Structures are given as structure tokens and as C-alpha cells.
């Protein structure tokens, strides 16, 4: 590449001496293409990350002067019960949200046929992912309503008193996660359907000749080929679990009594609290969430780096 462009430069250079700009165009060109995007991305994404970490060392209501408090926000966080509730709920989200991966695979296997109308079914199963989480939240608030929701009706049909899922401190987080699983399963399903489409028919045939069937076939022949799909499914599910915000904001606003809070919502609630903004404390919560997320981001980047090299 460099030699080719070098030749082009010298050929043209025989007429008149090439300018510095012209000689270095291959070196400079990427920066011209990058500049607008890079500036934009730095201002709104990269720099704010460091600003947040910095702000977490201050007490600040967003209006007046910042007051340096050092690690005080983090010390307060360690003693804050709401922080532990949120952390515990985030853990539940992470663990239970993972069910979306096998569930998505199961539905994908169920739908991976060629009967007439299957395309329609595939689209309809994917449907929940396309609608906003706000709408999903409203749908499930309605679904769970003990007096006129589907849950209420089913319970009453069996003669039982319907539980108030979103009003019960022990059930509420699971109710919200269940609602969140609905679109997430759809996402994983579509990843697997595309993956299954590309499974090598030769290997499946070879497996059949070796008498591999059912679970064995799935485990030893199909799943290894679905590895890229599984990788993406896990990544987007982890990120989705840690980002969970919309559903909580819509369905419970962290309640009852903060029992369904997660770090993302806890941070929002604290920073923009009705009782006065607490930017510093909020940023400290955000920093903790960021550090947790960084583990997964690093893992993803490391995997990508391996692919780039190999």
C-alpha cells in the first residue's frame, strides 16, 4: 500500500515538486475522516466519563459551587442501605436475565423450520424487541394488575387471591425482570435464528451419519458453530441487565420502599432528586456502576483484539 502510493506521488512529482500535504496525504487522510466524529464523541462520551469520576469527589447541587469532599461520597455509599439493595437487585438482574440466552435458543430451534407462514411467526416472536421498554413496562403493569390484569384473572379463575406482584417487596424485582426478559428473549432468538441459518449442512449430515441425534447433536455439533451468536447474546444481555432503567422507572420507580431499585435508577433518583440535586453522590454511584461494566467491556475488547490478531 505505502509503496503504491509512494510511486504515484513520485510519478506526479516529476512535473513539479509535490507539496508537503500531497506527500503525506495517506498519513493525513484518516485524520480528516476521523476528525468530526472523534471531536463529537469525545465531547459527549469520552470526556464526560472522566468528568463524572472527578465530580464524584465533590459535593455539588448542580447550581452553586462545588465543594471538595474527597472520598466522602464513597464512604457514605458504603453505609447506604439503598446501595446494597440496588447492588443485590442488579445481581438478580444479571443472573436471571441470562435465562434469555437459553430461552432464545429454545424458541429459535422451535421456529427453525420451513413450513408455510413461518416467516410471519418469526417476525411476530421478535415483535417485543421492537417496542419501547416504556411500552413494555406499561403492558406488564397492566398484565400484573391484581384487579383487572391477566394475572388477576388467571388467579381468580383458580379461585385464589391474586398477588400484587408490583406491590410486594419480595416479588417486585422478579416481576420486573420477567417483563424485561420478554424483549431480551426475542433479541437472543433472532441472533440464534441467524446463526442456525449459517450452520454448515455438511457437518449436520456427517453428524447424522455418526448417529448423533437430539441433545448430542445440539451440544457437540450445533452449539460450537453457534459460538459467535452465543457470544453476542451474552454480551448484549449483560449490558442490558446492567443498564436496566426504563422498566423500573415506569413500573415502580424503585418502590415499594426502594425494594426494586437498581444502581442505574438509584443514581438517577439521587442525582436529580426532588429534595435537591446531589450530583456528587450520584456520580459516585455512576462510577461504581461504570467499574462493574468495565469488567465486561474489557472482556469484550479482549475478545475483539484476539479476533483482530488472528
Amino acid at each position, binding site marked *: *500500500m505505502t509503496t*503504491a502510493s509512494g*510511486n504515484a506521488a513520485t510519478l*506526479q512529482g516529476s512535473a513539479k515538486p509535490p507539496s508537503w500535504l500531497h506527500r503525506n496525504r*495517506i498519513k493525513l487522510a*484518516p485524520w480528516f475522516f*476521523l476528525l*468530526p*466524529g*472523534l471531536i*463529537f464523541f469525545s465531547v459527549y*462520551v*469520552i470526556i464526560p*466519563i472522566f*468528568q*463524572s469520576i472527578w*465530580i464524584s469527589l465533590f459535593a455539588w447541587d*448542580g447550581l452553586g459551587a462545588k465543594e471538595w469532599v474527597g472520598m466522602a461520597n464513597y464512604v457514605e455509599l458504603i453505609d447506604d442501605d439503598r446501595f446494597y439493595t440496588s447492588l443485590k437487585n442488579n445481581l438478580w438482574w444479571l443472573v436471571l436475565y441470562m435465562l434469555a440466552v437459553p430461552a432464545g435458543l429454545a424458541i429459535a430451534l422451535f421456529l*427453525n*423450520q420451513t*413450513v408455510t*407462514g413461518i416467516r410471519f411467526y418469526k417476525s*411476530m416472536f421478535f*415483535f417485543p424487541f*421492537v417496542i*419501547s*421498554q*416504556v*411500552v413494555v413496562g*406499561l*403492558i406488564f403493569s*397492566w*398484565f400484573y394488575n391484581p384487579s*383487572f390484569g*391477566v394475572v388477576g*384473572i388467571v388467579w381468580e379463575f383458580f379461585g385464589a387471591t391474586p398477588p400484587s406482584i408490583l406491590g410486594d417487596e419480595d416479588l417486585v424485582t422478579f416481576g420486573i425482570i420477567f417483563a424485561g426478559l*420478554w424483549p431480551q428473549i426475542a433479541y437472543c432468538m*433472532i441472533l440464534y435464528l441467524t*446463526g442456525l441459518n449459517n*450452520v454448515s449442512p455438511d457437518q*449436520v449430515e456427517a453428524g447424522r451419519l455418526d448417529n448423533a441425534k437430539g441433545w448430542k447433536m445440539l451440544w457437540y455439533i*450445533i452449539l460450537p458453530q453457534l*459460538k*459467535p*451468536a452465543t457470544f453476542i447474546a451474552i454480551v448484549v444481555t449483560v449490558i442490558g441487565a446492567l443498564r436496566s*432503567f426504563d422498566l423500573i*422507572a*415506569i413500573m415502580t420507580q424503585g418502590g415499594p420502599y426502594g425494594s426494586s431499585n437498581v444502581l*442505574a435508577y438509584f*443514581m*438517577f433518583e439521587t*442525582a436529580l432528586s426532588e429534595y435537591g440535586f446531589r450530583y456528587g453522590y450520584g456520580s459516585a454511584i*455512576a462510577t461504581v*456502576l*461504570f467499574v462493574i*461494566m468495565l469488567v465486561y467491556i474489557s472482556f*469484550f*475488547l479482549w475478545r*475483539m*483484539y484476539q479476533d483482530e490478531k488472528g
Partner: protein
Amino acid sequence: MFPKPIEHSSAGVRTGYQIMLPIALFIWLLPLLAIVLTSIRPGGDINAGNVFGWPSDFQLIENYTAVFTQSKAGLYLWNSVKITIPTVILTVGLSCLTGYALSVYRFKWAIPLFFIFVAGNFVPFQILMVPVRDLSVNTGLYNTVHGLVLFHAAFQLGFCTLFMRNFIKALPFELIESARIEGVAEFKIFWYLVMPLVKPAVAALSVLIFTFIWNDYFWATVLIQGDHALPITAGVKALNGQFVSQWHLVSAASLLAAVPPVLMFFAMQKHFIAGLTLGATKG
């Protein structure tokens, strides 16, 4: 093909499968069906306990008209359009440039910069919230459509750059090389040679970003306060407070909010899925 194609199975299995499909779909979409049904029945039905039965009267048009006449849903929908479309154009356009730079040129910074874009795409929103809100307030962009567009476009650049870069990387490099030998200027190579080839990627990204931005709720609540710029997602939440116990109207408004991304998905399904799988199929 796995699992075994059903047409090689016995007639019984095949019929069984055909019966299973609609039942499975019905259960899967049950929560949605419940609110579709609610959105077309009269409000009195719910108070009378008729929630899941046949509506006493079909009020499809009445209920949906009521949403527009009794609330600002029309304004919210229009705000969503004003936020979503410019964001898509801005971010997809910029990502063509960044994706091109990071895939075609081999320079020392290509991989580190690429990874910064990818990492930025995954960060939690909350780590950006306070500085971005503060920046918007200080520059007069708080509570404006432009402010939201600029932020969204910048943030989505992470995902779009990842996608574009990988897409362009997969194009035959010899094309670009031979154009260079012919002495074609770098920008002309980008514009006349590469841009026509990345059209499928532009389509995939456009539908995907459209859906992401249309469905955004978090940034709308952080950066917008008044009705004049509130998008429909945050608007539906506001309507929920306004239409207390008028469930038929809340349902209708929620479904309205979902219509544009759903239409987009059905119209451009192939591109949509290509975007979502992030090249998971190639490996």
C-alpha cells in the same frame, strides 16, 4: 439444517407442529393482546369487570381519536420525529467517515481509536448523565430538540462506527488499492467507490438507530423538561398520569408510541436483523 426439517417427519408430527405454532404465539403475545383489546373497548367495560372478554362495543376510532384530542400525544409524536430523523442522518453520516478511516488506513492509532468507540458504546448512561446535563445547561441546549439530537448522535457513533468499520473492512481492499494507483484522490475514493458499496450497511444502521432513538426514555427525561420537546416515550409516561384509571386511553396511547418502530421493522426486516446480529453470522 437443525433441528430436523419437519417435512421429513410423520403427518402426525407435522400437524402437531402446525397446531403448536399459533398456540405458542398466542401465549407469547398474550400481554400485548391484552392491551390491544383494552385499547378498543369502552372505558366502562373495565370498571364493569369485562377485561378479557369480548368488548361490549368496538371503539377503535373513538379511543384513538380521544388520545389525540384529550392529550398532547400528537405533539409528542411529532417531537419524536424531530428528534429521531436528524439523529439518524447525523450519526450514520459521521460513522461512514469514521468507519472508513478506521478500516482502510493502516496507522498506529487505528485499533486504539476503534476500541475507544466500541468501549464508549457500552458504558452505562449514568456515567455520562451529570456532565452531559451540565454541558447542555451551560450551552443553552438543555430542554431543546437540538440538544437531544446532538447527544444521541454522538453516543450512537460508538455502535455505528463499530458496525461500519467491520462492514468496510470486509470489502475487497484491492478495489481501493487500484484506485490509489490510478491516482484517485482519497475523498473521491471514499465518495464514489466505497459509499455505493456500503448502502446495505447504511440501511441496516438507519433502521436500527431509528428504533433505538425512538424508544429512548432515559435521555428524554434527563435532557427535556417541557411538553414542547418531549418525545412520545416520555409523553406516554406523562399521559399515564393524566389518564388515571382510563386504561383504554393509556393502552391506545402506548400502542401509538409503538407504531413507527414496528412499521419500520416490518418494512425493513432484513436490514434490521442484519444490523442487530452485528456480524454474529460471519464467524
